[in-house]
């Protein structure tokens, strides 16, 4: 039982219809337009590990996170949670499944209802799932507030009385209140001050050890990912271009895009190493480039890149999708 991955995602794809209204299309003789936010994404998350998805803005990180928790319906593909397929509709079986996962959002100023007291916010999952009732709820809320480093008396206050970091702690307490096994963290620290980021990340790690949590961490910040993740998936234009063990991704990046990202990270050690700046911008996902979608920016581009979508290949560190990997051209360059 323990060797089945907690979360399996296969062929996950999402298109968004971004066409103009029907009348405009008819008059201007335009086709329907679709934006591909995620294309054939496969990955697995094992129990107790932290899997991170990284990528630039618009690479489809958040869409994937939202599909996993049921906020966005996938166009294609399957999501298996502990071997059970997720079907996001009302029903007793799904309720049982929903109890086991939670989400932490990016903006702690928007993720807490400004009209609710902190106690009610944290108690909402407890009430919805009927985990406790009466005075037990208040006791549980107080305990959770203390678990995340706040005081039980804070339950009486409103969200606007707290700072960003404290609000994110409240959001974490809410996520913990249904006693989940799996938490999707969508950029949990990117709205916070740098000094507070580390506190929140350390809190998340402590909670992971304490409750045996599994995390899916969505981030664009490689230093956050390096601090937190066991394995990392790199997204480019909705496709997973590389997936590798976290430590080895930083030392032995396989895909040219991963290299470009790593090169762009500023380091405080001021090693004076020459950095290749990131060139170009992420293309328009409505009209993605042919073949490998990274080819217009790739420094190693060859003809085949413009024609064929690269297949996913096993690499020494994990998996990657690049035509050049077979000839091991990358490792020699």
């Amino acid at each position, binding site marked *: 039982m323990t060797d089945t991955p907690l979360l399996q995602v296969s062929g996950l794809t999402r298109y968004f219809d971004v066409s103009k209204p029907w009348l405009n299309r008819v008059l201007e003789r335009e086709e329907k337009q679709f934006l591909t936010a995620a294309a054939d994404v496969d990955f697995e998350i094992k129990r107790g590990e932290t899997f991170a998805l990284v990528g630039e803005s618009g690479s489809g990180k958040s869409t994937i996170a*939202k599909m996993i*928790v*049921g*906020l966005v319906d996938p166009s294609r593909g399957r999501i298996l949670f502990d071997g059970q397929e997720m079907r996001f509709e*009302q029903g007793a079986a*799904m*309720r049982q499944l*929903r109890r086991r*996962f*939670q*989400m932490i*959002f*990016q*903006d702690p100023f*928007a*993720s*807490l*209802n*400004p*009209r609710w007291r902190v106690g009610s916010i944290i108690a*909402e*999952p407890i009430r*919805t*799932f009927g985990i406790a009732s009466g005075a037990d709820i208040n006791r549980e809320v107080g305990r959770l507030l203390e678990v995340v480093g706040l005081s039980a008396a804070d339950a009486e206050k409103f969200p606007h009385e707290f700072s960003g970091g404290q609000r994110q702690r409240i*959001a974490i307490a*809410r996520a913990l209140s*249904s006693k989940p096994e799996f938490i999707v963290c969508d950029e949990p620290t990117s709205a916070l001050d740098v000094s507070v980021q580390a506190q929140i990340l350390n809190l998340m790690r402590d909670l992971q050890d304490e409750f045996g949590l599994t995390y899916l961490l969505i981030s664009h910040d490689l230093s956050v990912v390096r601090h937190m993740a066991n394995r990392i998936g790199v997204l480019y234009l909705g496709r997973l271009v590389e997936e590798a063990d976290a430590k080895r991704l930083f030392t032995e990046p396989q895909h040219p895009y991963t290299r470009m990202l790593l090169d762009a990270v500023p380091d405080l050690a001021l090693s004076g190493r020459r950095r290749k700046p990131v060139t170009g911008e992420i293309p328009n996902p409505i009209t993605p480039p042919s073949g490998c979608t990274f080819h217009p920016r790739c420094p190693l581009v060859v003809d085949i890149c413009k024609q064929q979508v690269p297949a996913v290949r096993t690499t020494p560190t994990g998996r990657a999708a690049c035509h050049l990997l077979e000839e091991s051209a990358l490792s020699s360059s």
Partner: protein
Amino acid sequence: MTELHKPRPTGRFGRAWDSDIAYSFRQSPVAVVAAVVSLILILGAVFAPLIAPYDPFNPASLNLMDGFTPPMEPNAFTGNVYWLGTDNQGRDVFSTILYGARISLFVGFAAVLFAMTLGITLGLIAGYRGGWVDSLLMRVADVQLTFPSILLALLIFGVARGFIPPAYREAMAIWVLIVAIGLSEWVQYARVVRGATMVEKNKEYVQAARVIGAHPVKILLRHILPNVMGPVLVIATIGLALAIIAEATLSFLGVGVPPTQPSLGTLIRIGQQYLFSGEWWILLFPSITLLALALSVNLLGDWLRDALNPRLR
């Protein structure tokens, strides 16, 4: 410095007095005067049976000889003195105004409540569901906005009367009036609530509730509704003034409440028949009351709009 270190008051009332909105209220003389005027009128209307010196709707207490008595002058036949004079049937104008304001305010509040409930419900549904439901509801709203609302209220009033048996018409008139005014005003609420709902539904606190599988009705009522009520309260206040005027207009046109239960509009209609024969008081005093009521409620609404708008602070 001492201002900054004042202890925060405790208790529900203390906190309300200390709030931003109460401060803004105290700083605005117009709002204070408007609140005092509307409060006096509302209290006068509510306690009309205790305050009114006469019961204008009890035919036994009326004396036709008292008719057309000018204000503050003894009647030529009976010698009775009335503060604001009497009308053609010898009813004390002051008393009829108190009772009339009662009807006007009741119709106004009830119509606003009805329009608000309808508008908020449809606005929440349209904003949250989107798609064809939204398109349908908003097209209906657009079409309705092309008609002057008073015309629409007249139409609804007329149609409703056709369905009600004549025996009940008089008793039902006030409810028909409420529904007619309410139906002609719901669009305002629906549009504002729809817009606010579309903003709120994409906020992360709503998504957090969706992740745990909270029922959509619960999300709408417990999460979104409290966050869209601010602008609704502003429209409701201004809408109250509009509803009172709409009621007066309909009653003035003779399609509102029956003359046995006159509202301010009915009193004005009765009064205008005597304006050119010199009995000016029968028209003037109800008109002033209506003006004071509508104006003070409207000014309160204006103040509330500015006080709740963070960009105008």
